[in-house]
């Protein structure tokens, strides 16, 4: 990794101790780096140490041994937190506040001046699509809406480093797509993003590098290209082949001595299909409304 490291861990270890219970090794000598401007995916099954790593980096818990630096400062440092945004796994927010008040509250914690805070709140509410519910108390929000306001609060300080824990959970496909687009947009702005998620397609869509944890140990780390590329396999995608042409191509490739040759008709992804249908429906309904308006105006 050639970029300037934003997150660095050195033998970071966490053991949970409890009275009358055996100790649990949650993280075992983790060494990793996240470079500036990267979208870094932290992957692993439940109990693999993803959340523990995030909490250690954010200073919510303290390491048993080892060390970690975030934005050049020790993990949990107040000065570093001023440049960090964090979206927890679920949006744990104050349910008696409305969207505006929530963002204003978190903005005040960052010491953002009032005029800046106001414009920032408006901007973020618009960004996450909650203009219609900006005055509604969060107790009346759906899970998806809570997630959106959670994302907004994580961005209130225009952070350099953003921790996103399952950012697309609870969102519908449109929302997921929007969040992924938002991540890519933030990446384009030079933000560093650390993404913890179970949803591997999301990771694949947005991440530059990933680390895979299992039982608190780092199993693999690297860029997606490095990890996913299958140098021994080649895939052609050709439109409009007849069966005859297809058979001839297979015979040709088999004759070159490369062993098994498979012919596959590729499936579209459900996500793309869903998006296409919704888009078409929207267009149709718009056209229908325009037609009705036209007829009405003629009558």
């Amino acid at each position: 990794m050639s970029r300037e490291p934003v997150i660095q861990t050195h033998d970071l270890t966490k053991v949970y101790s409890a009275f009358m219970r055996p100790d649990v090794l949650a993280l075992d000598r983790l060494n990793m780096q996240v470079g500036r401007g990267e979208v870094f995916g932290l992957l692993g099954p439940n109990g693999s140490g993803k959340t523990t790593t995030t909490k250690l980096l954010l200073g919510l818990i303290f390491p048993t041994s080892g060390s970690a630096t975030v934005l050049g400062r020790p993990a949990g440092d107040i000065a570093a937190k001023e440049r960090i945004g964090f979206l927890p796994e679920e949006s744990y927010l104050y349910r008696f506040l409305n969207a505006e008040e929530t963002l204003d509250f978190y903005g005040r914690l960052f010491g953002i001046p009032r005029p800046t805070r106001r414009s920032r709140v408006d901007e973020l509410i618009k960004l996450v699509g909650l203009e219609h519910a900006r005055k509604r108390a969060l107790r009346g929000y759906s899970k998806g809406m809570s997630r959106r306001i959670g994302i907004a609060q994580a961005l209130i300080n225009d952070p350099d480093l953003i921790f996103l824990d399952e950012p697309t959970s609870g969102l519908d496909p449109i929302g997921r797509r929007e969040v992924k687009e938002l991540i890519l947009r933030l990446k384009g702005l030079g933000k560093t993003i650390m993404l913890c998620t179970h949803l591997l397609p999301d990771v694949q869509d947005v991440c530059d590098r990933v680390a895979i944890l299992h039982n608190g140990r780092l199993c693999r780390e690297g860029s997606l290209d490095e990890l996913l590329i299958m140098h021994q396999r080649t895939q052609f995608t050709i439109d409009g082949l007849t069966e005859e042409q297809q058979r001839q191509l297979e015979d040709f490739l088999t004759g070159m001595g490369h062993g098994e040759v498979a012919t596959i008709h590729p499936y579209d992804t459900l996500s793309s299909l869903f998006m296409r249908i919704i888009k078409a429906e929207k267009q149709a309904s718009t056209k229908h409304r325009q037609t009705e308006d036209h007829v009405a105006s003629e009558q």
Partner: protein
Amino acid sequence: MAALVMLTLREAVRSRVLLGMTGLMCLFAIGSLLWPSDNDGQRVILVQRHCYRALTFFGLLAAAFLGGASLPREISSKRIYSLATKPVSRFEMLLGRAIGLITVMFVFLVLGGAITLVVTHIASARKTYAGGSYTAEVSDATAKIVAEDGSSEEVKRGQILPVSAKSSDGYRVSLAGREEEFAGSIAARSVQLHERSLALRRMVKPAQVTAVCQGKVEVSNNEVLLWCGELARNHTWTFDLRDLKVPQLGGDVPIRLRFWRLQHEPTYTDRTKHQAPIVLFRLRNPATGETAHAEGHFTYLRAETRPVPERGKSLDRYDAVVAVPLAFFQGDTLEAVIKDYEPKYPPGGRVFYTPSRTPTWSITGIDPGQLPEGQQTIRAQFIILNRRGIDLIDHTNITARIGNPATGDSETYQLNLRSQTPTHIRFPRRLIDDDKGVTVTLSGMRSTVAIGHASNETPIYLVRTPGSLWGSTGRSLALLFLQLSLFTVLAVAASTFLSAKVAILFTLVVALAGWVKDLILETRTAAELARPLASEAATLQEAAGLWISYLLKQLLVGLAPGFRQFSSSTYVSRSWAVPWSAVGNALSYAMVYTLICFGLGYLFFRAREFE
């Protein structure tokens, strides 16, 4: 941190905790208006004390529940994740929460204080009952009460008679051939006729007390017996001196006063319930217009106790003999007015000197001709509850300058005034002018005390500076605020290492322990005061042998925050202003305790992990 303070306040408002607390306080305050009381002053005091108790009670509950649950709820709901990852230190988080909750307490006290003032105002305005006038005529066996409109009601002796109106002109009651006047307004839920008297049931009003006192004059054995149901301020008796054998050779005429007082009267604290009151009379001779003051120290006679089944209590009898100068017995009648009375203590409201006013006053009306040279005395006395009581002053030094206003001649005396101990100054006759009397100038007073004088004997009392309702209420609320702040911080500190339920329980137990501790200290003080001096040496030796026990007790005393420092009831029950010194003491106590609690809480919170 300001954001956290505002968030906490907003949470208390929106979760309706503040509303609930204030609503309960309001109900309690309104309920206190229904509490029976025997006169206007007592009713006001009762209402104030009940309101303050309600504020303390609900405030403590709120402090325990809000303070104990605030942080644990933040952690269990995982909202702490969003908070702790912001640039807010643990110290700011804890302090913000604590100050936020203290602000909630402040708002609650402001609202509660406003309710208290309103209710106090209502209580002080309630003086009479509405309704028509009745005249009661009572024969040997029955009584007839005739209303002004002509309607009448007959009742038999012993029957409970509902009376829903007042009489402004008075009752005339004939019982067993003896006719008695009951002047003034009277109102009661019911009246019970007895052999020789009217007994007023519950909800007795001051006007009734006046009525019961009226006319009950008996003359026997050269004594005038005032047969008082209960004392009422500013009530006038008129004596017929023809019934009295006035000594021909000079000297004072003893007038025996007697009254009955309910045991455990609600406005008296336990400390004073059996202590004899001091009653101040003003005597006036209508023929000459002369007036004088007399002070009656009543003696409590426990053997004379009457049950009052209607009120579920008993009456204690108090007796006093007041010496009336012979000079007043010229003419046919003599008036006596109860100017003021206080349980045990000298009368309030007659303050001649406070530090903010002139320390000089003139005493006239002294008749030095009747007294030999050097027998004019100033008797000084000031108030204290006990050696460990609220009033921490047990002695004070003052300088008194006695001067003749006509000649300018004066003498200065250093006085060391001690609690409950009259101090006498003997000064030469030349300092008294026959016309202008004597001028007394005091200096060296503490800011929280004041001096008044009361009678022709020129006694000087140190009494509390009377304060305005606003000022006293404000300082009472300040004491309450300090107490609630302390317990709030205690609860918050406990919640840094305990779960919400345990932290709440812990806070309530500590509050209870503080209350019990005060009770123990109070009892011990009373026992110590009652203990003869001779046995003190032996007690001290015994205490020396039990030093470990002593240290443990002191530890308990130190750990459990007491209530005594924050209590204003002692002042309120006597209509005294809460002194600034009490607020200062409470402030220093609360600050020390709060800082220790907060410091310990922070140490725990700093090391806490949010898993």
